[in-house]
């Protein structure tokens, strides 16, 4: 849907991909934060918490790839 010859959805796609890219960076920071927390304190459940952080990172990557393919 070009407005004044500007592809609006193309720009929207780029913006969405930038946002999702930033989100991947944040999810990487979360993994680092969890590692820092685990190093500071060990009370059990460390492996599970770290696994959740990694799964979250993988999900963010998958959503980025989906956006890249379908948009």
């Amino acid at each position, binding site marked *: 849907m070009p407005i004044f010859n500007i592809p609006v959805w193309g720009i929207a796609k780029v913006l*969405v991909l930038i*946002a999702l890219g930033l989100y991947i960076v944040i999810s990487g920071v979360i993994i680092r934060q969890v590692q820092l927390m685990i190093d500071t*304190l060990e009370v059990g459940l460390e492996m599970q918490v770290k696994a959740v952080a990694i799964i979250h990172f993988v999900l963010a990557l998958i959503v980025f790839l989906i956006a890249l393919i379908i948009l």
Partner: protein
Amino acid sequence: MPDIFVSKKKESAPSETTHPPQGKAKHTLPGHSHNPLAAYCYHPDKANFETKDKKEVVVLLLRRHPITNLKWMLIFFLMFFAPIIVGDFPILDFLPGEFRFVSLLGWYLITFVLAFEGFLTWFFNVNIITDERVVDIDFHSLIYKEVSDTNIDNIQDVTYKMGGAIRTIFNYGDVLIQTAGEKPNFEFSAVPRPDEVAKVLQDIMVEEEQEKLEGRVR
């Protein structure tokens, strides 16, 4: 001149507070829990922190009462079901189908990370009482960590307060520890059984005094 009577030296038995029974007997202690999510754990099975000495015994591990998680849990549930509710309203109808799908995935990612962050903040913000000191571990945000501790000797006063209906019903409150150290006050916010926490601290302080008198200080 030989002594006519020499009294036997009194050997004070170490108290149960700082020297818990080992083995199965430990698991019968009141307040002891095997649950790693417990907010109040007396002599936890596993509790290590960065600056812990090898000989140091963790007496009490405290977190905020689980009921304090209600806020982020409610937000999580509202956000989780929002797309289903909003789906009936034509708010995003101007978007093409694929954009709507990606925004839905993005929404659930944000929902998930908010809940995870809420859990991490609760799980890793702990207060630890050992036989030698009090440790306060705080993670204020994604990248800010604060760990402060004070020796039991430095504690001057322990106050606990419980106020309000919810705190009374769920038996949690704040424990304020005034110290002579660099950090003047320690506050254990919204911890379960604040009266018992204060009692444990008093016991450790008494024992520390006793150790000082007997010259058993580590």
